């Protein structure tokens, strides 16, 4: 009796499957839509990490848009110059060189140097903390250190240091800008990789009030301005700003800066290599202060 059921079910299901399969195979032939073969080629060139930095849900979406001409070949910030060139080859168009960028932290505070204005006990994300009076840091421009950026980074390039500041691995960073988007304090910035010196502070408060709340901030003392041989650094709105066009990366301002707020990326990368593997602690320390 049960044998009939078994054989019956096998016959019914495989029969139905066969009929519908054949029908679908036949209609597939009849209704086939020809897709542009270049789309597939472009998709192969793209990094394939589906990070979404271009604004499309995945690399295939961008590939389609590039082939249709809606987006320039250099739209992918991760693939950068190389991908853009190869896409240009596929599509037969000239591509202007665009450099891969690097995310840097424009804050030198952390829980050692920047004071807190209150004790934050809540959801441990920068997004939540920033809703309470611009965050728990006394400085309104400061990095809050809960590591939203480290969470968001699709390339694992950001780790939180023990000081409660994100450390960005320059080798891993693809310059996609997702961390810049997600940071509620706008304290991360994409810079060109040729610019090796940057100011790790974005506070436009007066020097005296910066000094009161943070030992690592730019106090607008203008010493860098005086020491710069090529007139590339200027203090505007109480904050030193570097003109990347003029800067020759001589490093004199880095040495002179009394609060060590001007940072030479080359040295920082060297330091990272020495102490690699020790910067993986989370941002919990920040709240226990």
């Amino acid at each position: 009796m049960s044998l009939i059921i078994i054989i019956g079910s096998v016959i019914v299901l495989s029969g139905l499957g066969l009929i519908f399969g054949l029908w679908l195979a036949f209609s597939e032939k009849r209704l086939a839509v020809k897709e542009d073969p270049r789309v597939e080629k472009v998709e192969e060139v793209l990094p394939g990490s589906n990070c979404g930095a271009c604004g499309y849900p995945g690399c295939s979406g961008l590939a389609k848009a590039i082939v249709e001409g809606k987006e320039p070949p250099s739209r992918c910030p991760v693939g950068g110059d190389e991908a853009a060139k190869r896409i240009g080859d596929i599509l037969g168009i000239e591509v202007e060189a665009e450099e891969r960028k690097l995310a840097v932290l424009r804050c030198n505070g952390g829980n050692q140097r920047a004071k807190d204005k209150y004790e934050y006990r809540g959801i441990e994300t920068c997004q939540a903390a920033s809703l309470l009076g611009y965050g728990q840091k006394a400085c309104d421009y400061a990095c809050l250190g809960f590591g939203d950026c480290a969470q968001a980074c699709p390339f694992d390039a950001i780790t939180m240091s023990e000081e409660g500041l994100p450390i960005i691995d320059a080798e891993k960073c693809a310059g996609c800008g997702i961390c810049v988007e997600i940071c509620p304090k706008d304290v991360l910035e994409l810079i060109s990789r040729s610019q090796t010196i940057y100011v790790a502070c974005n506070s436009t408060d007066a020097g005296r009030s910066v000094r009161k709340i943070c030992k690592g901030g730019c106090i607008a003392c203008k010493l860098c301005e005086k020491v710069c041989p090529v007139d590339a650094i200027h203090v505007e709105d109480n904050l030193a700003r570097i003109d990347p066009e003029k800067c020759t990366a001589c490093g004199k301002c880095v040495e002179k800066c009394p609060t060590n707020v001007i940072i030479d990326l080359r040295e920082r990368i060297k330091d990272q290599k020495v102490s690699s593997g020790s910067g993986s602690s989370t941002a919990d320390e920040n709240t226990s202060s």
Partner: protein
Amino acid sequence: MATKLMVIAVSAILINNFVLTRFLGLCPYLGVSKRLDSALGMSMAVTFVMTLASAITWLIWQFLLLPTESNLIYQVAKLFGFEATPAAFDLTYLETISFILVIASFVQFVEMVIQKISPTLYSSLGIFLPLITTNCAILGVAELNTITYHYNFLESVVHGFCAGIGFTLALLLMAGIRERLEVANIPKALKGLPLAFIIAGLMSLSFLGFTGLSFVKGG
């Protein structure tokens, strides 16, 4: 006969509206009701699949799964001189899997057709098009036709088609409302889905009013 079909039609569209009263197929109801034209495309696809799936699943149920004299496998077995009662060929437990097979095939077919004739509609429906396969409203119609109501072939097809019309009605109403809400001045916290859910609830409440419709003679 005509009266019974009428009753089936009205109850599938209004009284037991698949979305608003039976709460089936809510996923596309909230997913593709943002724009009127994509909502229309979606409901046409669903109605098509529902109607055809109703017909095919009824045939499968009646002639392959049910243990009756008309069971095809029983007939073939008898032809070869196999001694058994029809009751031995009870394959009703295969109902869900074979129905889903039918539905999935139709959805694949519809997907191909839409991709061919309207690429814009294809991209605006996005993931919700292949998801018609798992739209419980369609499996629901097939199951109600066979197991619950024991409809005959014509009734099943009418029920399937009208369930699709009911789905269309709900989706189009929702899309129309949501298109207007796009430009309305509403609190920020309610923008988008939160308000859509509230509206879905209110629409469902109002459709419950149709429960009072009665088809009793002289009533």
